[in-house]
């Protein structure tokens, strides 16, 4: 270790309030994985109510108390809380912090050869503000009336008049947004300013490009939601009417204490102005991880590297002008609907370009079916299903039928769950040896992969049929309607798929903790990869590199004809690559 010649920081400075991007990355990773697990548990509870409405939940039904589940039967209010918090936790506390906070923080500075992020203290602050946001969200479960129960979109007027949990939700969101903003400033400055000599923009790994575009999306799209959050806080705490119209009637009672003059649509615009770019925040870093894994495991350069980068830039840009396709059913007017339907169709083009480039990259590759590669390969068709089922939703005529049904749930879960979360697993299996110096066990990895792959499809595939049958996504008990009762068997299938999917994660959890101590020890570059993070020791010391590297080539020079090895690392000179040893 290089720590011999300087003062060793105390335990707290080293592992708790650390400014080292690697420690912060691991902190983000552990916290976000915990939240991912929590969000998953909330969903498993909901699935019980959906599959067996009104029945007592076995074994654990009594631990939630009389206020939430009297006699072990879930109340509708508690069901709504679980739904709202599942969405919030998964997106804002789980997936984004994993993709950006954990992978971005840990891997990106290593890939550009930097000793740390540009603003290490700001980085630490990002994590702790995120942590506070998470604590606020968790605490909201214990306030009177329970956690926020107006859906993860928090549409007013419902959210304006909801129980106290919504206020906590808003405070939590303000923290999470602030954390993301600080992080995105840090990421952009780091990528632009701290690249080592020779690492031009078009020699950057695709993952770094994805992080750069993602940071711009966070930087410019999140503040409107922060403003909207402040406005909703004003509505709830100071009695204003930003989102409340005149003559509002709640449960048959005319609301006379409000001044009126606002509009619920304003919230929807500000919310989706963030939340559509947010979709690309969820998918771009995932594509980045998949690109890294595919290039490494096909032993072949990425096909269409530049086309992928230009597509990503275009995608990021377009993502700001498609938001109102979430609002076709609000009566915006046909001209505006037509405009947003058009931009939505246009934005599918760069997504397809990137996916096609990744698929063509497989062609004639010497594919190594490692665990990360299996997850990356599964990502491709899963993301394609998720993406293509989105097209009917982007067309106003088809959206009239499909809006707010299970079809929508199926669509975006295919993007985020077997899409993004599979990419996250690929990333964990791929970079775990860099973080710990030890491999994850691949037998457990294969078990984890195959069962996850089967069960995740059993969870989400039936939802397309349910949705087309017209079942609303918000129903607490669909069997009270004839059209819902007719497809109840699909709901039961979906629920069992979800619980089995939960069991399929056990090998991963065991693997994750045991391999930290018992995994096979590996060298700096176990995958024979080309990018700079594999030059650093595993795990990298404080300051990352023993000497500052210099870059001589692009990121994916695999199987170059005439080279002595099938990979030419970015930091090795041309002479050294071709000399046969």
């Amino acid at each position, binding site marked *: 270790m290089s720590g011999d010649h300087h003062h060793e920081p105390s335990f707290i400075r080293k592992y708790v309030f650390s400014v080292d991007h690697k420690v912060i990355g691991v902190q983000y990773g552990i916290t976000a994985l915990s939240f991912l697990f929590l969000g998953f548990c909330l969903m498993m509870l909901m699935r019980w109510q959906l599959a067996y409405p009104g029945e007592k939940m076995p074994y654990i039904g009594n631990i939630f108390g009389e206020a939430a589940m009297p006699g072990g039967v879930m109340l509708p209010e508690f069901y709504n809380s679980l739904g709202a918090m599942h969405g919030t936790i998964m997106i804002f506390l789980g997936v984004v912090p994993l993709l950006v906070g954990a992978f971005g923080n840990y891997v990106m500075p290593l890939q550009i050869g930097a000793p740390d992020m540009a603003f290490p203290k700001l980085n630490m602050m990002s994590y702790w503000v995120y942590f506070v946001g998470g604590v606020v969200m968790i605490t909201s479960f214990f306030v009177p009336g329970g956690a926020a129960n107006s859906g993860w979109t928090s549409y007013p007027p419902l959210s304006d008049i909801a129980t106290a949990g919504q206020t906590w939700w808003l405070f939590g969101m303000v923290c999470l947004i602030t954390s993301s903003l600080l992080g995105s400033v840090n990421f952009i400055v780091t990528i*632009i300013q701290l690249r080592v000599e020779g690492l031009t923009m078009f020699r950057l790994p695709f993952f770094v490009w994805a992080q750069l575009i993602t940071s*711009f999306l966070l930087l*410019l799209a999140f503040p*409107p939601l922060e403003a909207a959050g402040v406005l909703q806080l004003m509505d709830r705490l100071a009695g204003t009417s930003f989102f409340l*119209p*005149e*003559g509002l009637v709640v449960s048959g009672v005319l609301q006379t204490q409000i001044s009126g*003059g606002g*509009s619920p*649509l*304003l919230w929807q*615009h*500000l919310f989706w*102005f963030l939340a559509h770019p947010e979709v690309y925040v969820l998918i771009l870093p995932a594509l980045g991880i998949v690109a890294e894994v595919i290039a490494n495991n096909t032993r072949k350069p990425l096909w269409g590297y530049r086309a992928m980068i230009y597509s990503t830039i275009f995608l990021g840009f377009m993502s*700001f*002008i498609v938001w*109102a396709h979430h609002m076709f059913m609000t*009566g*915006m*007017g*046909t*001209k*505006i609907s037509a405009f947003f339907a058009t931009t939505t169709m246009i934005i599918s083009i760069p997504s397809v370009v990137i996916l096609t480039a990744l698929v063509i990259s497989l062609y004639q590759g010497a594919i190594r079916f490692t665990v990360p590669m299996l997850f990356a390969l599964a990502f491709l068709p899963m993301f394609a299903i998720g993406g293509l089922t989105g097209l009917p939703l982007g067309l106003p005529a088809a959206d009239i039928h499909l809006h707010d049904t299970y079809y929508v749930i199926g669509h975006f879960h295919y993007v985020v769950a077997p899409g993004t979360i599979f990419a996250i697993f690929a990333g964990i299996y791929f970079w775990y040896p860099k973080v710990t110096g030890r491999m994850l066990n691949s037998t457990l990895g294969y078990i984890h992969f195959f069962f996850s792959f089967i069960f995740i499809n059993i969870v989400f595939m039936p939802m397309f049929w349910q949705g087309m049958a017209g079942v609303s996504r918000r129903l607490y008990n669909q069997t009270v309607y004839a059209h819902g009762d007719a497809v109840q068997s699909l709901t039961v299938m979906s629920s069992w798929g979800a619980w089995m999917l939960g069991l399929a994660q056990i090998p991963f959890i065991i693997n994750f903790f045991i391999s930290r101590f018992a995994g096979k020890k590996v060298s700096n570059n176990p995958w024979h990869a080309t990018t700079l993070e594999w030059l650093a020791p595993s795990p990298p010391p404080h300051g990352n590199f023993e000497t500052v590297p210099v870059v001589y080539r692009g990121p994916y020079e695999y199987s170059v004809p005439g080279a002595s090895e099938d990979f030419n690392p970015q930091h090795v000179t041309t002479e050294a690559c071709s000399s046969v040893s």
Partner: protein
Amino acid sequence: MSDAHADVSKHVKAYIAVFATLAVLTIITVWASTWHLSHPMAIAVALAIASVKATLVAMIFMHLKWEKAGNIWFVIVLTVFFFVVLVSIPALMHSDRPLGTVFSSWG
């Protein structure tokens, strides 16, 4: 703050002049509000004056006039574009409806 304008003392006069201009423009904008212009015209005048003032602050006080870093200009152009998209949200509400009836038609 590159060496090209290391001699910042030359800028002091510019700063004072900008301050004087901003003060005068503030007085003009208050004065203009007493002209009893029609509403769209009054808004146009006030926003035009405010834009001039904002440009002066950005160009002189924030040194954009001397700024050569392309990245800053890139960020500014990008932000201005998305700012325009953001403030055009209200216009979306009016594409198919006359002004003043927007909210009542939702009631």
